[in-house]
């Protein structure tokens, strides 16, 4: 018997969603702590210094990993929220088309964020 797969979730199963949610959380936390620390310790930051930080290969890797993490994490998280609240039990039969509408909207915004963000951090 194969594992039950769910075409509607991000990963192939609830377990991989759970793991992805945690792994991406760690990446985003590392990014946030680092950038906040950097900005606090460089209060007179100027443009050239900011660009040289973000064009350093290590920072580029962190930027790309963070941007991808945001997309995966937001996708899984909002999926969970929508499937918890926009349900037939809570809202009646109109819930299903409504939920699909919100899910498609969420996916669209997430992909726009992802492409926009990759364009920002890759282009430097």
């Amino acid at each position, binding site marked *: 018997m194969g594992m039950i797969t769910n075409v509607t979730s991000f990963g192939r199963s609830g377990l991989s969603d759970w793991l992805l949610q945690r792994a991406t*959380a760690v990446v985003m936390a590392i990014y*946030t702590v680092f950038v906040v620390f950097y900005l606090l310790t460089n209060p007179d930051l100027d*443009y050239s210094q900011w660009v040289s930080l973000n064009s350093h290969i290590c920072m580029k890797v962190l930027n790309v990993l963070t941007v991808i993490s945001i997309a995966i994490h*937001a996708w899984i*998280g909002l999926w969970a929220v929508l499937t918890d609240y926009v349900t037939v039990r809570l809202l009646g039969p109109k819930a299903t088309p409504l939920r699909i509408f919100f899910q498609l909207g969420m996916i669209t*915004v997430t992909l726009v*964020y992802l492409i*926009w963000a990759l364009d*920002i951090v890759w282009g430097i």
Partner: protein
Amino acid sequence: MQIYGVYIVNKKRPVNLDIGTIHLPITSYVSILHRVSGVVLFAAIAVFLWVLDASLSSEESFNAVKECIGSPFCQFIIWASLAALGYHMVAGIRHLIMDFGLGETLEGGQLGAKIALIVAAVVIILAGVWVWV
């Protein structure tokens, strides 16, 4: 009206689940706020990406961001976004710590929830100090 063969005379029947009178434990507040902050953050990503984009595009737009961070409206938007991030990150890290099996008892969970709320409040205040001072 008749239910299960019993006549209900009293029009003001008791409500099974009156959410107005339910007292949620502190852990529920921490967890529902984590959800809310996650949804707010989804919108805040647009703010962060705008700041990142402008700050890296050119020297002029970098300075424009610095200038904008001097205006009250901009400051409020940025502080609100940082507040959502601060809360979500603190409560999220608490979540990860509990996933590792720490503080899973009732008392441990309540203590962890209190610590998370206090740390998040401090982070949100510090974010305000950072943006405004």
